[in-house]
């Protein structure tokens, strides 16, 4: 029973990781860039939705509000991601690989600080609104506690995954993305607007990160400007776990990581178990995967850019 309960907990946090991980994977698949600041895009999404609620719906809890909140989240994160691509990364597309990575760190720190300094009250964590049906007292199925926010999160992942599959395989832009990820130069010669495809990749990742921001807010009832850093790192772990560049891999990797973490918290006995070591095990998993199976669980395009 405990196992089942922790499995559900793990799948929930895993869904969140997966939603963010897609952003890493899509961008990496196309420009071979680890967008270190993607965790911040997720954070901005959460603040975007909170801003919508604070400005327009303060004090309300109707489920209908969720739609404008989601829109606000997505608008904020996509906006930030596109600006970031345009002004920070695009000028460095042919620079040595160190440059974009350091830029990413700079962008990440800047975004955190901008939110902390200029979002009203963000110097300490902000409470996130309670929305009917998707937060509040959990559903009780026998001994299993099912959080409402968990249902929302998993649902959001399912919908997003279906949308993503449709977008990449069925739309012209999506096929363009595939072409660019195979061979950017040829794709350019074939008349594909590579710049646009890259922007779309950033936007697509940001879209899912924005939704994840809302899910995070509903799950934990509080958001802060630092929530993006570890979430981003974990999501990157998930992306690598599944095979970076592989969208399905990001989803699988996220779920595996989430489940592994919650099971480790419950079942690793003794002094090296429990929450204090949970993150250590997650990072150990990351290193082991990178060293011994860099292509990830599901395999990826060959990504050796040595």
């Amino acid at each position, binding site marked *: 029973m405990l196992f089942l309960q922790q499995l559900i907990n793990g799948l929930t946090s895993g869904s969140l990781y997966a939603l963010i991980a897609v952003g890493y994977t899509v961008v990496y698949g196309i420009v071979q860039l680890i967008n270190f600041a993607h965790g911040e895009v997720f954070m901005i999404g959460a603040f975007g939705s909170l801003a919508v609620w604070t400005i327009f719906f303060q004090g309300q809890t109707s489920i209908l509000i969720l739609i404008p909140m989601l829109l606000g989240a997505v608008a904020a994160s996509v906006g930030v991601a596109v600006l970031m691509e345009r002004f920070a990364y695009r000028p460095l597309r042919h620079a040595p690989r160190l440059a974009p990575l350091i830029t990413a760190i700079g962008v990440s720190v800047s975004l955190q600080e901008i939110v902390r300094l200029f979002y009203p009250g963000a110097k300490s964590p902000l409470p996130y609104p309670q929305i009917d049906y998707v937060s509040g007292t959990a559903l009780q199925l026998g001994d299993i506690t099912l959080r409402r926010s968990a249902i929302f999160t998993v649902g959001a992942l399912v919908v997003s995954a279906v949308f993503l599959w449709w977008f990449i395989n069925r739309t012209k832009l999506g096929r363009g993305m595939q072409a660019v990820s195979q061979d950017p130069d040829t794709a350019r010669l074939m008349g594909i607007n590579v710049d646009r495809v890259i922007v779309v990749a950033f936007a697509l990742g940001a879209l899912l990160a924005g939704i994840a921001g809302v899910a995070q807010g509903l799950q934990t009832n509080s958001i802060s400007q630092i929530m993006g850093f570890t979430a981003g790192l974990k999501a990157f772990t998930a992306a690598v776990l599944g095979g970076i560049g592989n969208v399905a891999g990001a989803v699988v990797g996220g779920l595996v990581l989430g489940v592994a973490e919650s099971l480790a918290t419950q079942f690793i006995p003794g002094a090296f178990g429990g929450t204090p070591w949970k993150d250590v095990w997650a990072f150990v998993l*990351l290193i082991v995967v990178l060293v011994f199976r860099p292509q990830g669980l599901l395999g990826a395009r060959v990504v050796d850019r040595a």
Partner: protein
Amino acid sequence: MSTVSTPTQIAPTPGYHPSRIDGLREQHGRLAWLLVLTGLVVLAAGCFLSWSYDPEILGNLSISFNPGSLQLFMLTAAVLALVYALAYRGPLRGLGVWIDSAKALMVLGIGALGFMAITLAVVAVTSSGLINIDPGGWVSLVGSLVLAVGGSLLERRPTKDTLHAQLPAWVEIGTIVVLMAMLLFGAAYALGQTDGNIFGLFLVFVVAVAWSLFAAGFFTWLGIVAQRHRRVLMLGAFAVAFLFPFTQNGSDANMSIATQVLIFAATALGLNIVVGLAGLLDLGYIAFLGAGAYTAATLSTSAFATIGWKPPFLVVVLLGAIVAATLGLIIGTPTLRVSGDYLAIVTLAFGEIFRLSMSNLDGNNGPDLTHGPNGIPAIPDLQIGSFNFGDEHTILGFSLGRFANYYFVLLVLALVIITVFSRLNNSRIGRGWVAIREDEKAAEAMGVNVFGLKLFAFASGAFLAGMAGTVKAHQDVSVTPDQYVFLESAFLLAAVVLGGMGTVAGVFIGATILKLLPEKLRFISDYRLLIFGVLLVLMMRVRPEGIIASQRRQLEFHEEDEALAERIEEVHLEEEAQT
């Protein structure tokens, strides 16, 4: 900004279309020089008059014919402008052949204008009203404006390359010595300022002067001279560093910052081996400093120390370094299979694992080694013979406080690290690193032991950082896990990147900027991290190789810049001819 900083834009290049300013320059060429002279005279004259009605602001600027420090800055600027002007046309023509005095005048004029504008703004704001600005201030402002306009309108002339300038050796060495002395007194003066505004304005002045010298081509020449007299330069720099505590009148306020700069720089120099020389990225480097610090703490005589063995300090230094180097080897092992961005993430994860482990090993979660989040406090001061580093000592009439004592230890440590760094760089191993950076596959195919050299880079860098850590533990009195967070690693990397990859001087400049400026410019404190982030982004766009870059690194970041490559080659040939 870039138009000022790119030296190659002086001479009209093929396909260069004259713009409106060039037309103006042609028309008013003669007038411009007179304008410059007028401007600098007016600027200087204003400095002898009162700038501010209120004597409390920015030191005392309210007394006529008795210039305050800010006014002396502008007088200095005026004298420098006079030199440029006379080099442009007049008795110093001989000098004018070598330096681009027109551009230097423009830059200096704009800098002086900025300086005056900020000064007057500060006066007006702090005393609430423009009325509190005395006529002298306005006179100097107008003077600097005229100087800037005149400088901009001067016709640009092509100059000879300073590479071929031949001066007696004593002049060159003398220049180095004078610069070093200026560095010492400038630093002592700047650090003595408690008023953030004066400190900031001093920086504006220094930047304006330095930039104009840069525009004049002075630094290119200086770089060549420094190459020629490397030993003199090293000695001079060390002398300045050594004498610095004696300028502090026994106050520890700046020495505490200085020790932090040194520890930070020493660690960053270790990181520079990994990043700058071997071309690997490490985002968890602070862990090595932590490993050294924790080793020293657990082996110290603190009541909180968890290991019973208390070896002498030199043994501790060695042990701390070895523990860190061992960690470095472990962290380096994945380089066998992982490279680039993946390696960065692996190192980041290692850094986090280190920090989490240190805060977990408290007896509840694993063995009690580090006291977890409480850390190990109450680490006693170092004691060598009867010399206790915690006490104030008087040497030659100068009293030196606790931090000054540690400063000297760290200085020796820094010297060791610099030696190791530069000797490794100029050896078979250093060549191997460059080869790996340039083309790993080709290096491997030429028989370079790629994996071994990468491991060695990690281990040696970690070794040096571990040494610094052992001193840090005693100087800090306590060691806690929250000093070794990711952001600190990012700061270390930033010091290397800002200062210049692969160079010693660059790292020291980077470390000084990152540690000193936030301390002195307290009014930016809440915006410190934001500025840091933005600075990283801008730096990567504008000058990714850092302020003082190694030439090779510079080339790597500007693969397409042929002119730069040729220029560097010329320097190479010149050096070859010298030896």
